[in-house]
Structures are given as C-alpha cells and as structure tokens.
C-alpha cells in the first residue's frame, strides 16, 4: 500500500560530490546537484510510491525543505534518509546544542512525503526565503 508520509531518521554528512562541489563554488551546478538531494532506501521509496529522482518534502520540528530523492546505491537503509551537508540540510537540522555547543546534525526524527510538483530551490532562492537576503 502506498503511504502518504513516512517517518524516518535524518542523517547529514559528507559525500565526495559535495566536496568537489564546494570547491567549484557554492553557487555552482555541481554544488546544487550534490547538496539539494537526499539518499533514500529503495524500499522506502516504493512505500511512498515514488521513483528515483522524484522531489520529496522533508519535514522536521525545525522546518521543511524540498529535495530530490535518490535511491541509495550501496545497501538497504530502511528508515534512514541522508542529506549531504549544505544549506538544504540545514533548513531542517536540529539546532539543539544539548549545552555543549554542538547542534544535533545527525539522528533527527523527520517525515518524508512525495512532492513531485514542488520545485527544489536554488541556493539564492533558499537564502532569500529563509534569511531575506
């Protein structure tokens, strides 16, 4: 049965594409392609009834962001989504520092829902929407 929303654990981290993208420039196509996406488990994508490269809306207690869902190629990771570090990941990450200065970038509870008609914002659009500049 196709579900409307899926409860997942949000992880963020590095990918080699993100590393190359950040050196080519934060407004480069490489950085946009590398960071405005999330890796999802193929089984989870089937549960939501979406195909590879479909846009999804990721929501946490801190906000929501539209990202391109990409099937995680290496192994099954049911219940996990992985967003490479960048402004898109930080739109939904938890800022709770648990009194030691470090926000909780990994292991945040999140919800994913299909959003095939919504657009992934570019870095300029995202900064404008979130910070008004």
């Amino acid at each position: 049965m196709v579900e409307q929303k899926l409860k997942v654990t949000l992880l963020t981290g590095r990918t080699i594409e993100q590393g190359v993208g950040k050196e080519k420039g934060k407004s480069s196509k490489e950085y946009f392609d590398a960071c405005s996406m999330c890796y999802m488990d193929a089984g989870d994508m089937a549960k939501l009834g979406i195909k590879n490269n479909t846009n999804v809306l990721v929501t946490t207690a801190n906000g929501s962001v539209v990202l391109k869902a990409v099937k995680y190629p290496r192994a099954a990771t049911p219940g996990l989504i992985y967003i490479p570090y960048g402004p898109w990941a930080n739109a939904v990450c938890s800022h709770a520092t648990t009194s030691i200065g470090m926000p909780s970038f990994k292991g945040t509870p999140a919800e994913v829902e299909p959003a095939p008609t919504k657009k992934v914002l570019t870095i300029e659009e995202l900064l404008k929407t979130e910070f008004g500049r």
Partner: protein
Amino acid sequence: MSIVQSVTCPICGCLCDDIELTIENNEVVKVKNGCAICEAKFLGYRGHHRIKTPLIRKDGKLVPVSMDEAVHAAAEVLANANYPILYGWSSTSSEAQRIGVELTEEVGGVMDNTAVVCHGPSILGVQEVGIPTCTLGQIRHRADLIIYWGCDPWSAHPRHLERYTSFAEGRFEKSEWKAYMQKLKAQAGKKKVQSATRSGLIKTQPPRASSCTLPGAPPSALSKRGRKLIVIDVRKSMSAEMADFFIQVEPNKDYELMQAIRVLIKDGELDVDKVAGVPVEYLKEVADALVNCEFGVIFFGMGLTQTAGKFRNIEVAISLVRDLNMRTKFLIMPMRGHFNVTGANVVSAWQSGYPYGVDFSLGYPRYNPGETTCMDVLIKDEHDATLVIAADPGANFPKKAVQNMVKHPLIVIDPHMNATAMLGDIVFPAAFVGIEVEGTAYRMDHVPLPLKKVVEPPEGIYSDEEILRRILEEVRIIKKQKAQQKVEAT
C-alpha cells in the same frame, strides 16, 4: 611553464604534501597526485565564484567599494559592538589565526572556530580522559588493525587510506591495495555469474559462499593475514565497501555498542542477542580482532560527535582504547575536516589557554562550552555583530543560528562568494592560503606543515593576515579616538 613539487594540499586534515602542480602564466594548469576535491580546488580556484573587490551592502545589495572604506566600516562595526562573534579560522593559516586572537581580545568578543560543529565534542572528551595518540607516520608503518568509526574517509578524506592506513605501503605493514582489487574482481565475476544465471545462460545455481550463509556464524574476514580494516557506521558508505568487516550500527546507539565491546574485551558476558542492532557474535569477532592485533588505531568522525551522546561517545571511545592498551597497543585519532582546524585549536590554546569557544568580553579569556560557544551565543541571540573568516556558517549552520546571525552586522572574509558572503554586509575578498599565500597549517595529528605560494594573487587581493591586521589597526585608532572624545567631554 614550471613544475612545483611537494605542494601541501589546503583542503582536508590529511594535508597531503606530495602534490605536483604545473604552472603556466601564473595559473595552475595540471594537478598530479591529488584527489578529486584537490583537483577541483587547484583547477577551479579562479572560477566565477571568486570575489574580486571588497563589497558593502547598500539598499539591500552588495556594491563594490574601496579596500580602505571596507576596512573602516568593518572596524567601526567591531569597535562599537558589545559582544561580537569572530568565527571560522579553519581554512586559513596559523599566522592569520594568531592575529585573530589579538583582534578578538581587542574588541572583547567570542572567538570560535569550526571545531564547534565538528570535533568540539572530541576536545571535551579528551579534556575528560586524555588521549593516547600518535602521528600518522607511525600508523602508516606499523598499524595492523584500522577502525573507522562514524566516518567515511573515501568521501571526506579521499587519500587517507592510501597515504596513512590500509592502502599505504609501510615499512612493517604492507598495502592491502592488491587484495582489495582482487576482491573487487571476484565480486564483479560473481555479479556476472548471477546475471548469466538470471538470463538463463547458466542453468544451475552456483554454490554460495558458506561463510555468510551459516546461521549465526559471522564472516571470518578478520582472520585474514595483513592489515585489517573495520568500518562502523550507520549506513554502508563507500569506505564500508572497502572494509574487511562492516558493522551497521543503529543511529544514535554508538555509545551502547562501544560499552558492549568494552565488556567483551574484558572477557565479560552479554546477556542479550543484539546490541545497537548488531548480533553479539559479530561483536565477539571484533573484540577478538581488537585484542589480538599488534598495533590498532581507531579513527572517528562526525558519526560520533554529532549524534546522541556527543562528547560522551568520545569519552567512551577513548576509554575503550585505554582498556585495550592493557592487552595490546592501541591508539585513537579524530578525523579533522578543514585543513587547519587543528591549527585553529592549537593557536587558540597557546594564545588564550582554550582551544575553541573563547570569550574575551570580561577582558580575560573564559571558556564554557554551551555558553561561550558561538552556536549557543547565536541561538540565544546574545551577539551584536559577527565576523566570519575562512568558513561558511551560512551554508553549514542550522537555520535558526543563521537567522540570528543576519539580524546584526555581518563581516565576511573569504576568497569565495559562498553562502555567508551572499548574506554578508561587509565582504572582503581574500587570497587563497596554500595557493596564493604561504603559511603554516597543522595536520590532523598535530604535525605543522608549510603551505606554499605557487601563484601570485590577483591585483588588489590581500591575504587573510593582511586584512585582519588592517582591521585591527583601524579598530585601535577608532577606540583611541573614542577614548579621547570621552576625556574631552568630561
């Protein structure tokens, strides 16, 4: 055309110092020995994202101004601020970091570096229990068991395996590269057979490898000869694919897993079948490998510092290493991200006594993570100005922190037009450290290495050091004038 050898790569904490660059007409045209990120930096540093002149936000838009105007505006902001944050420092030279401490002391602000969102918890863990560590050279030559816990060097430190661990040809331990290539070939062959079986070219199913199919029996990958590589992560990363043994831990449960391994290496019994989603018999195999190695090392990353437990994870990881040293030789090292984040901690520590999150607002250095760390100051909106240098919090800080950052004047010093520069009020273009300016950087094992200048910076673009020095001089002039005005008024 000239070739420059032994260039130190200014990207990650590996600080590979065997890069060979070909320079033509003051431009890098060829990179040898570097990884994908290294090539992207050396070949792309002159790209469209480069900031060309100082900029100031006027009527909502960044407009070009002269260097003097920008320096004066930045100094005015800092001299008049009560509690400014001076953040970043990790992608610049230690020489610039030193002036940063002086500037922060002068303006009575908070000096914090990117360790706060990286290995800050590791530093807290080390302050609790100490750290048994070494230089990477020792590991390259002697380590026979390498563990990457909560990190993916293939993505973040692409040459770490090749230069310092499993795939390095050491004096006493040899490279596992050939064995890895053979494993890949075998896997490719197996896939071909499977695909041929599926398409009907082969009628009978080939027998499966017995080691993985026996119920309850873990694979015997750790009984092989030579260097062993264990990866522990919440997902099968690229580094996990290279490992002899991969353990998939449930998110936020690394602490439990480490405590379970501590019990096992002390010959204790666990009365559960699984810990953090990992069957105990797998953990027993790991515990055996840990105790029976001659020289083991744990490298750890954000998988431990950013998940539940944070610095407690590091504390228990170091305690595990301490326990292991009762049985064999074991060491531990954090995988530092930015090329000079270690330097930022070292410089801050030798100048102020504390490695990060140092508050100078009372006139003397104070350190209380959770209060004086820039993330907490930002979230509580206690600051009234920010200077960001050689980092990109606009892209890498949680939304609320950046929202509070842009409420007050934001000064940015960076070569790139990154997310923070796009949000900035006063933006300085800087020369690239390690390409256009020389300096010193500390490798992840605290070894200082020289960074080379291989090309001239574009005209009118100064080093971080020079920009900071000019701002500091201007701040002193403004403060002197204010003091004089005060005296005259009374």
